[in-house]
């Protein structure tokens, strides 16, 4: 698979429909272009978003989460254009989102906080208690469900963030740096959870950790300077690293640097900003 091997396209017969689709997506922050002409589609599975700092990963996740407005282009989630305010509630009902800087109310218990998010997501009230317990158990905090969030460690708080994201069992899950603050054992467990979620949901994970991508992702998208630099699978990225011989300690790291260099070499005018 070559850099930017396939861009957004209509699914062929038999291929699952993309839950998330962008076409010509453009995002500006004042005078800076964060994303430019991004065409992507994501179907069920775990999709790793890789890229250097400032590449536009968080901007992409925030637009998909309907937190930020795109400056141009089209974004469809679950078949709805996110610019259509009448459909936005429907889109959000199917989203789970863990922001990079996860905020929480320290005085709430884990149960109360996750239930609060469930209320914000307008989940049916009678199903909320069980959904909360299920989500908290999924992230391994069942024994701390009635502890106040302020009494939890940083890693546990990150898991509360994941629990609130999955409480509505969303078909589209957006996780921005979800493994930040987790210890190695927790990361291993989290990857297992990601694989499980990816069976039925479209999970988009922004991360710096190539090990996470190698272990948990079914697809990888490399973003650089606001453009898609590479799309493929982790094995194809690792193979690119082996064939191109980029620097790195891990096959995917080598593929990552090789893809970046190839993209930068081919990009007209170099970086966007």
């Amino acid at each position, binding site marked *: 698979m070559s850099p930017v091997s396939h861009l957004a396209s209509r699914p062929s017969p038999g291929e699952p429909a993309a839950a998330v689709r962008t076409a010509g997506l453009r995002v500006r922050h004042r005078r800076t272009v964060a994303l430019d002409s991004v065409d992507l589609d994501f179907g069920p599975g775990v999709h790793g978003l890789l890229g250097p700092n400032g590449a536009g990963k968080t901007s992409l996740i925030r637009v998909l989460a309907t937190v930020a407005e795109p400056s141009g282009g089209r974004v469809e989630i679950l078949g709805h254009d996110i610019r259509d305010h009448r459909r936005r*509630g429907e889109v959000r009902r199917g989203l789970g989102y863990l922001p990079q800087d996860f905020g929480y109310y320290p005085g709430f218990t884990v149960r109360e906080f996750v239930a609060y998010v469930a209320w914000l997501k307008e989940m049916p009230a009678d199903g909320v208690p069980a959904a909360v317990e299920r989500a908290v158990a999924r992230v391994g905090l069942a024994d701390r469900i009635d502890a106040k969030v302020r009494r939890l460690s940083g890693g546990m708080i990150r898991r509360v963030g994941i629990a609130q994201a999955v409480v509505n069992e969303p078909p589209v899950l957006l996780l921005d740096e979800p493994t930040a603050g987790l210890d190695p054992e927790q990361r291993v467990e989290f990857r297992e959870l990601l694989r499980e979620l990816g069976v039925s949901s479209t999970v988009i994970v922004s991360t710096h950790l190539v090990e996470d991508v190698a272990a948990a992702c079914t697809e990888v998208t490399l973003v650089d300077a606001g453009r898609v630099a590479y799309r493929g699978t982790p094995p194809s990225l690792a193979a690119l690293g082996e064939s191109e011989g980029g620097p790195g300690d891990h096959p995917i790291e080598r593929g990552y640097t090789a893809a970046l260099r190839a993209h930068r070499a081919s990009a007209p005018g170099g970086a966007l900003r």
Partner: protein
Amino acid sequence: MTLLTERAPRQRVRRPGHPLRAEAVRGFAPWAGAAMLLTLGVALAVGSERWQGGWAETRDQTHAAAMLLGVPLALAAGCWQGGRERRRGTGELLATAVRGRTAAFLASALPVALWLAAGYAVATALALLATWYRAMGDRPHLGTPLGDAAVLVCAALTGQVVGRLVAWRPAAPLLAAAGYVVLGVAGHDRRGSARYLSPFVETSSTSVPVWWQPWATVAWAGGLAAAAVLAYTARRRAVALLPLVAAAAAGTLLVQTGDGLWHTAPLARRQVCDTSTTPQICVNARYKELLPQVTEALSGMTGRLEGVENLPVRFEDLPGRPGPDEVELPMITPIGWSVVRGRLTDPEEYAWAAGMTLQGRGDCDEVPRRVARADDAVEHYLAPSPLRRQFDEQYARGDAAERAALRERLAARERLASMGDEERRAWLSAYFATRDECGRNGVPEL
């Protein structure tokens, strides 16, 4: 972290309760309510002698405390809560909520507002309880406290909007200070018609608002607060015009009614009297329970006046000047001077003040020495001042003229005291026939 296969054994699912419950019992909201209770409690307790026992005074004191201290506190508390999402970094999560912005806003703002109102309600209930224990008459005035509670809720909601918009930590204390200044100035303004729009109004304790005044004030303040909330949260901001129109209508009604918003309480125009004494003793119906105490305090004087003629018919206690056959009962209000917590503070001094009003001549610039001597003797006979001994001692240490005057006064007192009952009644009848006259004509020799 566990996979589905490793989930904990199935247990009975515990309901987390409504999310508003978590907002209501965790975090800042209960502290805001406690702060309101403490602030108002201290402010009311410090000056309790000025309101305890009087329902109207209790209404006025709780109103002043709620408006001048409670509203700034509610503004600041709301503003602080409004900045919570920014401080906690939860804005991104809220931005992805399916539930509307207005509902999410109210989920955060209402618990604080309601806790503040609860703090106010408890402080007011304690004040009412304290007054009920020493009540002198009248009845509780509940319209104003209900209106004030609603104004506090409005202030908290408005503060929350400001807190969401202004990303500056000193915003909360500065908003409170601004609220205090605006309400203080508006409440003490006696001229501009804009004062009728202020939720803080300083009035006489004999006044009561027209029945709809608290509700019009709530509509005015509530309309503005609702407009601010909707302008901030609603996707179609034009809906904020609806409460704004309601606020404008209520505001127009308040301004156009002006002074008609308040009138003298019907109860304050009535008095209750003890007709068994001479003169009769009447106290205002607002504190009718004081009548036995006042009668008891004046009993020495009224006993000595039995059979005396030319006296006023009664001590009266109504708004305005007394009638031609009446004298004004010494002031009972404002509470905190003659009367504290339903009790006359100094019955002896009160009786002396009543005796002085009977003598009249309070408006005379100067009276002849002979008349002054007679006045002193009558004062001493009816109800001497508690300070009389000190005055006499002061005169005794004075110059020759003062010592001579004292000797004359002591002799006059002695002459009046040593008269037979009939002779004294006749002399007093002649004396009271000349009350209010500043000259010597007619005042009998003593």
